[in-house]
């Protein structure tokens, strides 16, 4: 993964955030990770103060998204990102505890790129995150659209 790609992690549970970060690092991914613990702050960062998303027009981003946030549903964030003309090509990885088939289907319909369920079993969890890290290292994030 090119060094320019920034990972936006939207995860309200700090424990989860820490575990995710740790395991990503263990897989050898050293990209910058910008954590957010609420949907509102994440949206403000992504879309800027004017809400247009123009600020990140030139940047390569990758979004790690939890669906259960205290202030809003992760699906709403997914929807807004995919509707924004500057951000819609940004890959979104949904990483959540929900394994409800309706939820999964809905996320893919909205344009989510990868959907991963957080397993309680830590080995599976660590494994999933590390593989995700490996995935990050080979994934091609679209270059900044101009």
């Amino acid at each position, binding site marked *: 993964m090119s060094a320019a790609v920034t990972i936006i992690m939207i995860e309200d549970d700090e424990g989860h955030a820490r*575990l995710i970060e740790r395991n990503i690092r263990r897989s050898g991914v050293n990209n910058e990770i910008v954590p957010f613990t609420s949907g509102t702050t994440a949206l403000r960062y992504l879309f800027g103060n004017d809400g247009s998303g123009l600020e990140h027009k030139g940047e390569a981003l990758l979004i790690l998204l939890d669906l259960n946030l205290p202030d809003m549903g992760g699906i709403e964030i997914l929807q807004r990102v995919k509707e924004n003309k500057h951000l819609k090509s940004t890959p979104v990885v949904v990483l959540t505890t929900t394994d*409800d088939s309706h939820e999964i289907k809905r996320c893919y319909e909205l344009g989510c790129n990868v959907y991963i369920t957080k397993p309680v079993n830590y080995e599976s969890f660590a494994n999933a995150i590390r593989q995700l890290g490996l995935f990050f290292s080979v994934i091609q994030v679209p270059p900044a659209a101009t």
Partner: protein
Amino acid sequence: MLVAISALSVLLVDRAREDNDWVVHTVEVENDISTLQLRIRTTESAARGYLLTEEQRFLDEYLDASSKVHSGIDALIKLSGDNPTQIRNFNEIREPVQARLDEFEKAIGFARRRDTAGGIAMLRSSDSGKATQRINDIAGRMRAEEERLFMLRTQTADRTERLASIVTVAGSGLVILLAGISIFLLRRSTRARDAAEAQLRDANLNLEATVDERTADLREANNEIQRFAYIVSHDLRSPLVNIMGFTSELEELRTDIFRRIGALHLAAAQSPVLVDAENSVEAALETEDKQLLDNFSEALEFIKSSIAKMDRLISAILNLTREGRREFEPVRIDTRELIEAIVTTVAHQASEAEAQIHIEPLPEITSDRLALEQIFSNLIDNALKYLKPGVPGGISVRGRTKLGFAIFDISDNGRGIDPKDHQRIFDLFRRAGLQDQPGQGIGLAHVRTLVRRLGGTMSVASELDRGSTFTVTLPINWNANRRNREP
């Protein structure tokens, strides 16, 4: 009332007819008196005619008329036998009439002897005028009497008739009045009934509305519980991921810490050359440190196994709520075929337990296939799991129908269930008896929920060491009713 009026009216009409008869009777009597007088005259004139002409014609006429005079009087007496005045009059009239007849007889006698002159003289000499006068007087009296009776009877008849007509009119009026009252009462009762009907209809509608409302409330409450269970179990998972994650991290740390302790020991005791060898590090730990490591590991293992258990429970709840939200689809099911398919899937378990599963002919029912599969596979699975060790298992599935319900019995010769646990085994997360089999205590709770959703009931009959029989009663024709309909 009407009967009384009718009777009265009939009575009066009868009276009027009687009165009229009396009037007619009077007229008849009068008529007969006139006829009598006429006959006397006829007799007289016939006698005279014979006397003058001596023609046989007059003699015949005389004989005929005179014979009728007395019979006429007798008939009259008979006719007006009710009236003493008239009888007296008739008796009175008899005498002068007889006198006259005798005179005529004498005259006829003269005539027969060809003594016409003597006859004429006899007739002339006799005081015929007096007798005739008397006859006329008496007849006049009689006629007057009859006239009086006629007047009287006519009046009576008129009165009776008037009375009859009054009664009839009154009766008719009363009938009309009664009819009016009946119509009025009928109308009133009809109106009252209509009002009651309307009220009943309203009440029914209200009741339906109330039932709908309550049903909606219940459904809402049920949905809320489902959502609640879903969210709770879901949100419980989140911290569990952390607990499990950091416990695993602790495990890593433990390894690191004890490796360092071992290294330190080694460093202190010997040359540091052997430090990198893993085994030697473990071996290098002192007995006290080893004890610590074991305690550490034991604590972590307990935490991990508890988390795993909690995760299974949460998953079970999630599955139950998901199951509760699933829409049932009634289809025609050959139950025997369905249960045979289930038995095939547990064939391996059955042969391990040396169990025979016997399926008797079962009724076909209309129900949800997946739910039925879950119900029966749970029950058969349970029967296989809780057999008596060392005893070849015998499981049978029987079915019968009764009053629109199909009743299935799943019997085994297993270890049985203590009667005090019969209720408990259907509770979520509760189990009974020897806990030597894996399980969460969910199966029967789930089965009962499914059976209830399918409109059925289930029960158990069992004793310890005597085997168990689970009875499932399901409607033969189950259609997705409102319990299954989402609002």
